[in-house]
């Protein structure tokens, strides 16, 4: 397959169309807009079969997706920032109802002060919503994660969110290979007719009131099923890579994490999303002068790959690059990594970078790695 030059938004929209979704519903917000504009253009131009429901708000768009998914239809939406927050209650309902929806979050900061650029504040506000959450390193990863998302959502009855850094990836053009319809057909079965779907011919109730005993069971099951999704994500990832004829392209990686650099590295940069390419570049430069630096990419944020993170960070210095903070506490990524490496002999340095679209540079990372002392608490890079 020959690569073509596409921006992230176009590539995601074209992939969603090839995934044969039945319903797309969205409300525009920067930097997600170009994704849903492209989907609307495909529909208007007769190149798509899905129904495009223009919603009056993100709350409505997510609700349309919920209704479609509950009726057994493959559904899609995308949002960012304040829009994602406005979807919040529906996102919890989608996972609680165990509906297989898929959405893209074109990650952006949260107001106030208002700022349209990238960081991970938006998704972190929804980190406990019970969704599988992927982070894309580049637009090729984003495309592949959208394909995996529908497979996993429908197999596990769990909603899946793909986090794609706003502007940095959504507005960036690079050579990309779109999956063919034939490859998708091989990988993704038709949406199974499930007993858990609303059908006017056979009326049932879903999402009704439950007491503490049943509620406890639902929450526990959702937690256990998300944790158990890790191996499923890896199986799906392997199968998709093999189907595309690219097994072994990234030997120290799977659907959950990827390791870049020498295995005997002394310092490991830990991060998620589009900053990974810059971190790899910094690590490669530093390693040319014998610095022994590696990069651990977290591709799957929920379920969090605790065991793998512990295995790769044991007895090393880990510098965690957070693109969101949790005022008054440790940043979200730092929390999980710190929990993962309990008793593993890991020295942790917490950094916050790229907030509100701040540029993260190789130079900044090199300086950070070379610092001889680190302050207690969080080091803000700017």
């Amino acid at each position, binding site marked *: 397959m020959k690569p073509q030059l596409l921006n992230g938004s176009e590539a995601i929209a074209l992939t969603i169309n090839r995934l044969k979704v039945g319903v797309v519903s969205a409300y525009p917000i920067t930097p997600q807009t170009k994704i849903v504009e492209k989907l609307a253009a495909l529909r208007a131009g007769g190149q798509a079969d899905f129904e495009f429901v223009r919603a009056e708000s993100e709350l409505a768009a997510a609700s349309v997706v919920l209704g479609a998914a509950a009726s057994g239809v493959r559904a899609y939406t995308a949002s960012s920032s304040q829009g994602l927050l406005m979807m919040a209650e529906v996102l919890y309902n989608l996972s609680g109802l165990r509906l297989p929806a898929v959405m893209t979050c074109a990650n952006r900061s949260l107001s106030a002060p208002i700022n349209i650029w990238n960081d991970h504040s938006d998704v972190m506000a929804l980190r406990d919503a019970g969704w599988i959450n992927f982070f894309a390193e580049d637009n090729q990863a984003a495309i592949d994660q959208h394909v995996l998302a529908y497979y996993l959502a429908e197999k596990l009855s769990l909603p899946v969110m793909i986090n794609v850094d706003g502007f940095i990836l959504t507005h960036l053009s*690079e050579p990309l290979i779109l999956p063919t319809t034939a490859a998708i057909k091989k990988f993704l079965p038709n949406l199974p007719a499930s007993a858990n779907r609303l059908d006017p011919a056979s009326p049932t109730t879903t999402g009704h009131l439950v007491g503490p005993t049943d509620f406890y069971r639902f929450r526990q099951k959702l937690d256990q099923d998300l944790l158990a999704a890790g191996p499923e994500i890896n199986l799906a990832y392997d199968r998709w890579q093999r189907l595309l004829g690219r097994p072994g392209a990234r030997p120290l990686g799977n659907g959950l994490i990827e390791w870049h650099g020498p295995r005997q590295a002394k310092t490991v940069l830990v991060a998620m999303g589009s900053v990974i390419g810059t971190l790899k570049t910094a690590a490669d430069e530093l390693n040319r002068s014998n610095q022994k630096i590696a990069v651990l990419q977290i591709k799957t944020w929920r379920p969090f790959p605790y065991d793998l993170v512990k295995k790769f960070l044991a007895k090393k210095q880990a510098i965690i690059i957070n693109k969101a903070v949790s005022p008054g506490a440790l940043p979200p990524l730092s929390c999980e990594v710190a929990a993962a490496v309990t008793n593993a002999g890991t020295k942790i340095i917490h950094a916050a970078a790229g907030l509100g679209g701040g540029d993260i540079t190789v130079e900044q990372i090199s300086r950070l790695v070379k610092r001889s002392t680190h302050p207690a608490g969080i080091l803000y890079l700017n």
Partner: protein
Amino acid sequence: MREISLYGLGGQGIVTLTNILAEAAFRAGQKVQAFPLFGPERTGAPVTGFLRLDQKPIIIRQQITKPDIVIIIDDRLLTAHRSYVKLDPAKSRLLINSRQDKKMLSTLLGVPVKLIQICQPPADLGQAANLFVAGTIIKTYGLANLNNLRLAIRQQLADKTPAVIEKNLQAARLGYETPTT
């Protein structure tokens, strides 16, 4: 790797210019990465396009602050918005659309005269002036050939009318054929 920064004001087609150059270079067999940097999203605000070209895949994602080549399609950027223009006075080669003389531009930018080239799209090109500059750029820096550029324009402007596409193709050819000063 070659790094190119393109500067203009909102509405002048900097994003389109960046994407068309990326497509042309991609067609010429290079690995490319192109992305915009927006200020507040409104007409007249500074807009930057970044373009990286290499023989191997490009993974770095940071903005370009020490470009090999700087394109400025409106010299008002050098006064009102000088702080937006990031360059390396020791190495960045500049192509500026300007009626001012090189000495003045050299003073405004703090770079040696010998790194500056000037192009002047004819006023009657209107909205197609950015494509005139595209022609000048590929000729001056060898990013692609004119045929690569023509195909890139046809692809990137596919949703425009045939008349608009033709006007842009002509502007690109004119830019390609007009020497810089």
